[in-house]
C-alpha cells in the first residue's frame, strides 16, 4: 500500500488524537488571536448600549448543557452588558432540560454583578409550548406566568410593577439552540412588533440571516465567535475568547485534513487513470 492509500485509509483514532492535541495546544500556550467584530453582533450591542437606564429587556433562554459551551458565554456577556447599563432583565426558559442550568447561570452572573432578584432581574421559569406562551406573554406576562420560578406572584416583585407585556419592554434577546427562534419571529415580533435579537449556536446562525436582511431581527450573535465578539465589545474577555483560539486551531486542522484527503484522492485517481 502506497503512502497516498495509507492517507486515504487513515485510522480515525489518529484524527481523534490530532483534534485532541489541537484543542490542548492553544490552552497550554495561551494563544491570543485578535477578534474582528461583525455588524450583526455590533447591532445587538449598539441597541442595548443605547437603551435608557432602567429599561426592561426580555431574555428567553432555550438551551441545555449540550450547547452551553457556546451559549453560556453569550448569556454572561449579554447579562454583563445589561447590568452595567442598569437595565432590568426578565429571563425565562422554554427548553425543559435547560431550565435549571439557565437559573444557575443567571444567579451566578447576578452575584458577580451585585444585582438583586426582583429589583434588577427576575426568572420566570419554564412553560411548555413556546408559541402559545409567547402569544399569551404578548397579552400579559401573568397569563402564562402568574408566579415566577420560585412561586412568587409577579405583582409582588418590584421590577414587574408597570410591566404588563412586551409593550413595556425595549428588546427581546433570545439565546436559543432550538427552532424556538422561529416562534419568536413569527408569533412574537410579527404580532407584537418588539425589537428582536437572537443569540444562536454557530451551526444555526446561517439559518437566520434572511430574518436579519428583512429587518425582522436586529442582530445575530452566532456561536462562540459571536459570544467572543460580544466579550470584546463589553471589554471583558471570558470563556468565549479563550474558546476562540481553540476553535480556530480545530477548524484549521479540519481544513488541513480535508486538503490532505483530497490530494491523496486525486493522486490515486490519476494513477488509476480515472478522468471523472
Amino acid at each position: 500500500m502506497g503512502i497516498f492509500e495509507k492517507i486515504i485509509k487513515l485510522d480515525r483514532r489518529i484524527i481523534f488524537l490530532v483534534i485532541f492535541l489541537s484543542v490542548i495546544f492553544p490552552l497550554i500556550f495561551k494563544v491570543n488571536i485578535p477578534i474582528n467584530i461583525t455588524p450583526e453582533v455590533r447591532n445587538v450591542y449598539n441597541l442595548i448600549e443605547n437603551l435608557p437606564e432602567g429599561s426592561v429587556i426580555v431574555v428567553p433562554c432555550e438551551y441545555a448543557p449540550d450547547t452551553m459551551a457556546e451559549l453560556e458565554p453569550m448569556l454572561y456577556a449579554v447579562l454583563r452588558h445589561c447590568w452595567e447599563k442598569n437595565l432590568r432583565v426578565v429571563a425565562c426558559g422554554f427548553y425543559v432540560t435547560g431550565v435549571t442550568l439557565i437559573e444557575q447561570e443567571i444567579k451566578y452572573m447576578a452575584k458577580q454583578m451585585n444585582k438583586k432578584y426582583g429589583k434588577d432581574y427576575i426568572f420566570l421559569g419554564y412553560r411548555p409550548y413556546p408559541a402559545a406562551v409567547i402569544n399569551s406573554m404578548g397579552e400579559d406576562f401573568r397569563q402564562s406566568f402568574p408566579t415566577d420560578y420560585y412561586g412568587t406572584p409577579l405583582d409582588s416583585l418590584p421590577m414587574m410593577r408597570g410591566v404588563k407585556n412586551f409593550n413595556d419592554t425595549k428588546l427581546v434577546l433570545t439565546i436559543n439552540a432550538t427552532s424556538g427562534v422561529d416562534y419568536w419571529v413569527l408569533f412574537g415580533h410579527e404580532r407584537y412588533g418588539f425589537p428582536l435579537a437572537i443569540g444562536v449556536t454557530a451551526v444555526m446562525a446561517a439559518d437566520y440571516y434572511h430574518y436579519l436582511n428583512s429587518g425582522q431581527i436586529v442582530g445575530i450573535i452566532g456561536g462562540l465567535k459571536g459570544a467572543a465578539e460580544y466579550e470584546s465589545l463589553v471589554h471583558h474577555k471570558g470563556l468565549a475568547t479563550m474558546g476562540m483560539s481553540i476553535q480556530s486551531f480545530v477548524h484549521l486542522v479540519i481544513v488541513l485534513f480535508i486538503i490532505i484527503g483530497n490530494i491523496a484522492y486525486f493522486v490515486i485517481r490519476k494513477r488509476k487513470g480515472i478522468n471523472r
Partner: protein
Amino acid sequence: MKRELPIAITFICAFILTLQYFIPHRSFEIMYEISNIWIQIIGVFAMILGIISLIMLHWEKIKHKKENWGFSIVTLASLVGMSLVGLIASENSPVFEWLYNFILAPISATMFALLAFFIASAAYRAFRARTVVATILLLAAVIVMLGRVPIGSLISFGIFPKMAEILVNYPNVAAKRAIFMGVGLGAAATALKVMLGIERSYMGSD
C-alpha cells in the same frame, strides 16, 4: 358523528383564530387569549400521553427481554426518579439540582463534545471534490469554516471573513428565502385543507 364532530371543532377553532388576525376588536382579543390558555392545557394532556406511551414501550421491552432491554430499565428508572424528586422535593431542591448538575448535565455535554471528533473524521472521509457541485460545496465549507474563526482572518489578510460574509448573506439567504416561501405556501395550503376537512389524517385511520 365520530368524524363530523372533530371536523366541526377543527373548523370553528381554525376559523375564529384566523379571523382574529383581521378584526382588531376586544372580543376577538379575549377569544385569542382564552385559546392560548387552552392550547397550553391541551398540550399538557399530550405530554401525559407521551409519558404513557414511553412507559408502555419500554415496559414491553423489559417484559419480553428484547434487545438492549437493560437501557429501558435505566430510562424508566430515570423517568420515575427525576419525576418523584421534582414532585416531592421541587425543582429548586438540592437533590434535584445535584441530579441535574452531576448526571444530566455531564451526560449531555459529553455527547455533544464528542461531535467535534466525529465531524473531523467524517469531513476527512466524505469531503471529496468528486464533481463540480461537490467542489463548490467543499470550497464554500472551507471558506465559511475559516472565515468564521479569527485565525482565518489572520492567514488570509481578512479575505476569508469577507468571502464568508458574502456566502452567508447572499447565496445562503436566497436559497433560504426560496425554501421558506415554498414551506409557507405548503403550510398555508395544508392548514386550509385541515380547516375544511379535506385533510383528515390527524384523526387516525379508523
